[in-house]
């Protein structure tokens, strides 16, 4: 069922996802070219995390197609799915560290379980990746519950990049970090992408971060991408929704669903 569609690394076509009666994604189209860093912005609860989970097959969309390297991914199972998932690294919004394992085992998990690497070798790589996100080897010996929220986020980041995947999804990588650490993480993301040709999709509310890491920015609103363009154009997009969002104004076309 493999079908070559285009040269895009990841492509979503008409993806629809709803929970009960609540429509979250309503025919979403999005394309990420190889080696590109795309940032998706959008209000809280607009379905940014859901979109990523649909690509990874954690959630199953009701309609639409998702292509990764030209292969349709929504119906993959078994070995094919494992091979597909090995292309990805994922930083979860809430870090989602395994609390029964040590920090370094978390980082090395994909290497040991997913790729069958020897523990000692995987451990060295894990420590190296932890150092990259500014965490010492002592932290590697702790349990996730002993870390602060920001440290957990950085461990999650180390885990996402541990296996040097082709595609990395960052779900709010800088949320909950102080501005300086946020910049360290931004630099790290930029370095990861620039150096290696990794394709990334990041989600953020943080426009400073978005401007720094993005080649292109897309905005999600009401289940669709309503604007997409190069990072430099975000300030003169001519789109009232984007303008409202980047200037953080309560007044404008976007009505927050806050009921009095």
């Amino acid at each position: 069922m493999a079908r070559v569609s285009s040269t895009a690394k990841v492509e979503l076509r008409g993806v629809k996802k709803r929970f009960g009666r609540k429509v979250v994604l309503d025919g979403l189209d999005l394309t990420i070219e190889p080696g590109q860093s795309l940032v998706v912005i959008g209000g809280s609860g607009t379905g940014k995390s859901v979109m990523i989970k649909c690509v990874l097959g954690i959630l199953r969309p009701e309609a639409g197609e998702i292509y990764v390297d030209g292969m349709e991914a929504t119906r993959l199972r078994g070995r094919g799915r494992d091979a597909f998932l090995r292309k990805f690294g994922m930083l979860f919004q809430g870090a989602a560290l395994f609390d029964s394992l040590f920090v370094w085992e978390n980082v090395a998990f994909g290497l040991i379980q997913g790729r069958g690497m020897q523990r000692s070798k995987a451990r060295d790589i894990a420590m190296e990746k932890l150092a990259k996100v500014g965490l010492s080897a002592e932290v590697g010996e702790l349990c996730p519950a002993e870390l602060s929220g920001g440290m957990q986020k950085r461990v999650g980041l180390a885990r996402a990049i541990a296996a040097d995947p082709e595609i990395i999804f960052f779900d709010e990588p800088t949320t909950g970090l102080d501005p300086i650490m946020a910049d360290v993480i931004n630099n790290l993301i930029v370095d990861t992408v620039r150096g290696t040709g990794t394709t990334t999709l990041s989600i953020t509310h943080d426009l400073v971060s978005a401007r720094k890491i993005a080649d292109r920015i897309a905005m999600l609103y009401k289940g669709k991408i309503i604007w997409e363009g190069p990072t430099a154009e975000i300030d003169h997009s001519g789109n009232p929704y984007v303008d409202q969002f980047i200037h953080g104004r309560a007044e404008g076309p976007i009505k927050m669903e806050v009921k009095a």
Partner: protein
Amino acid sequence: MNFFASIGRTTLDLLREIGRFNIFAIESVSGIVRPPIFWPLILKQIMRIGFYSLPVVGLTAFFTGGVLALQIYIGAARYGAEQFVPVVVLVGILRELGPVIAGLMVAGRVAAAIAAELGTMRVTEQIDALTTLATDPIKYLVVPRWVAAVISLPILVFIADVIGVFGGYVASTQSLGFTGSIYLNNTMNALNNHDIASGLIKAAFFGFIIALMGCYYGFHSKGGAQGVGSATTSAVVTSSILILATNYILTNIFNFFSF
């Protein structure tokens, strides 16, 4: 109209739940023949499910065996059949009370613990994270637990059998005036492979039920701490009921084949 709509919706929900459970059960069972198999995790779970349940199972078995002897004595004495106390205690413990008491105790301990652990992993997205690290959560979390439970429960029940019969022995010699050597002799003469085996077969089924229900409710829990709490309750209640129902069915089957 509203009435029929709600009946319809309830029926649909029930069917969906049954379907979801069946898919989960099939994937969990077939996970054992699809490599990889995580042996270290199975060993770890045997420790947690089997070994750490020993104290609670041993204590309940001891008291159950004792009280069984005391009660049987009352009935038997009415017909002057006191000498059958050791045999009835033995058969009662081996065939019924050993597996059922151990099963229910482990259900309370282990089904709850599994549901709470996996439920927390679900709501904190750790199960999703496993998937993204190309590790099948069913194989990594569910298979080791049910395999460990199916191995552990018969061992636990065997130990419970010994302790339960010993409890009967203690009660009979201390409170009922039995002579120790005679009691033991009667017990040994009545010992029968079928009685032992039928209890251990039951135990393996109960172990499967406990682990599977714990995993199922944990896996499908949602909505934060409250969701995990209700998953835990459901796992314990459902596995306890299923243990008793399965026990009834298995006893009927064994009787039918005179096993």
